[in-house]
């Protein structure tokens, strides 16, 4: 049951779109900074398989510039 947190950087001008895109994904919670172009993303997937699916979906988001992982927990 992996839990990760990330700093998510939107593409230029795509902050609102990224918030909406991330919020629409299962297992994702998103918190935008009020005064910087940066978001916090916390993911909580039930198993490794669903985690891999989510990772693929994240990689395909056009509004996302990059993700920087800040925390990770797996049940390994």
């Amino acid at each position, binding site marked *: 049951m992996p*839990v990760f947190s990330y700093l998510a950087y939107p593409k230029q001008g795509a902050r609102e779109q990224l918030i909406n895109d991330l919020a629409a994904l299962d297992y994702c*919670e998103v918190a935008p900074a*009020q*005064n*910087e172009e940066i978001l*916090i993303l*916390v993911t*909580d997937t039930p198993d490794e398989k669903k985690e891999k699916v989510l990772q693929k979906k994240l990689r395909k988001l056009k509004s996302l510039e990059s993700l920087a992982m800040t*925390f*990770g927990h797996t049940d390994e």
Partner: protein
Amino acid sequence: MNISRRQFIKSAAAQSAVAAAAVLFPGVSFGAWKNLDPSSGGIEWKKTPCRFCGTGCGLLVGVSENRAVAVKGDPNCSVNKGLCCVKGYHSIQILYGKDRVTEALVRKNGKLVEVPIEEALDLVAEKMKETIKDYGKDAVAIYGSGQWSIPDGYAASKLFKGCIGTNNVEANARLCMASAVTGFLTSFGLDEPMGCYDDIDHADIFITWGNNMAEMHPVLFSRMLANRQSKRHVKIIDFATRTTRTSQAADKSILFRPQTDLAVANAICHEIIRNDWVNWDFVTNHVSFHKGKTNIGYGTEDHFKFTDKEETVDFESYKEFLQDYTPEKVEKISGVPAKDIKYMASLYGDPDKKITSFWCMGMNQHTRGTWINNLVYNIHLLVGKISTPGNSPFSLTGQPSACGTVREVGTLTHKLPHGVVMNEKDRELAAKIWTVPVENIDPKPTYHTVEMFRALDRGDIRFMWVQVTNPMVTMPNLNRYRNGAQKDGRFMVVSEIYPTPTYDVADVVLPSALWVEREGFFGNSERRTQHNEQIIPTPGNTMCNTWQLIEVARRLGYEKQFPWSRETYIEDIWNEYTQFHDNPKHRMAPYNELKARSGIQWPFIDGLETKWRYNPKYDPAAESDSFDFYGKPDHRAWIWLRPYEPAAESPDGEYPFWLNTGRVLEHWHTGSMTRRVPILHKAVPESYVEINPDDAANLGITNGSKVKVSSRRGSVVMKASINGRGRPPKGMVFVPFFDESYLINEVTLDAFCPISKQPDYKKCAVKLERV
């Protein structure tokens, strides 16, 4: 509110992201973030210092059903004010690696087999007795670390120096901060910084001397960035031999050729004097000038001896000495443009700017480590920028208790908990507190760390007990010392938590309790002592390192000196130990105060911490109206005439590259703990060699391709990293040492500073071959 362990982990994940954002964007706000406050719900929070670097961050560990389940920064700890770095946030996972050593092991027929811990302790005591009988007391040794809790180091010193009567006590802090100690002692007469982390909030200028704080001391670095964010004039200058994350965040990055920091520091002083930026009032009243021996060697041969000879000189002699260090001359030696040297001098010389210099391994792991420490103090002393808020030459330390245990308890061959073995009064005090005959304490130091392992190789030492460190990864010129440890007639005892290359050479493995599995104390870089209680039970048959020493001491017949009960021994040891420092210059806080608070700085006088030493406004021990450098007999700080001298080994036609080694943010030292945390391991799964892109292109090396790094001592094959997080200049490579699969210390050189005896892991000559 009841919350699940899972919600709890999510909360820790969110807090980690907030902390990381705060480092990158000081002042960032996530006001809309829902608060997953896990402060209730059957989880109990307990304070502890972090057990990784020397910053001494306060942590709160969440415990549920006797298991550590979460971590957050302790908002009551002034060090980190609730922040953590990535290692801190994942720290509890080091407790739960699958291959944790939980039973005692004894080597039988070449294999380590499980035995009852009592049997292992009996064998350790028996072998010590036998070795002392056959080869003498100086044939047994203990080697610990700056990760020893204070009671561990104290028990080791008392057993070996006080009871057995050998000074064969050393710690890996010799490899980490010995030059800082000798720098302090030669310049001020007393060890440890005069300032504190509050300097970060007051300074206008920061200069990092060979110090990648963004990765090695990330929480302090974030405090620097926060200061710069809040005050626009604040500047950070990174003065280093390679470009790092610190350089990238700095306002200016200045690169120098390895070893030439000595020349640049002198050139800065030359400029300060030439421009008459000297604080004459301070210099006249509080500084004296001294010189020592030159051409002092490098210690690469066995039995190397060196004793410095001090000579007092005057300011005019110092000024004349500096004539060899004009910025233009030093530009040729160092590669640093004269205008940049003048710029740094102008920052130090500006009377309206408060300036803090930070350094750590770059200056300490240096064959002239004591000298470069002296030279940076010289700069601050010339302009009188010291011992006041924001004006601080600040030697950071690498390990959580290198200061608290190794430097304050004195777990080095020449040291006692107060003073040195060579001093009769110090021996008398130790004998009185330890209740041993004063004749037990040998007045002659034996072996510093490198020489101790040489003695093991030669057979002068036959028994060695290693606790809380991994020398079979960290010793320079490692092949010799690993072979030495495995020779016939050597007996190695290793107190460990996980299998390591040092465990692999053990005859006995004692399973150790780790961090919050036992009660203890650490002492951080700013003279702050921090207590932790035992928060969770010890797993299996693991045992606190202090108690292991007590058990062996009693088996050796020293019940009188080690009388304590298992319930109160940590408190009892604290109360005994602090008798050594019961004076206004070093008084420690009492046990109950330390238990209640998130760390207390010494000297602790009349219920108050001392933030800035030697300044009577803040330090009750300072007796003058102005500054009082009371560590020296003349009550002055000493400026030293220390020249530039080259490294022990420099690149040549056969070995044309400098090798520089160090750490990365995600891994702690040899990685024996952090590589067992899945996320940290995945972040940096293996070591690599950083190569300058031009050098890589010339050699036909591409990113990720295999490269053989060879020196005159050994070689290692590893992947190339080009334009990664660090970028060495042309002619240099950098290798992190955290990965036991790539033993870069088989390549490094065991040259050391003749004064501090600290090896130089930053400079030797290597060649590269594409594999």
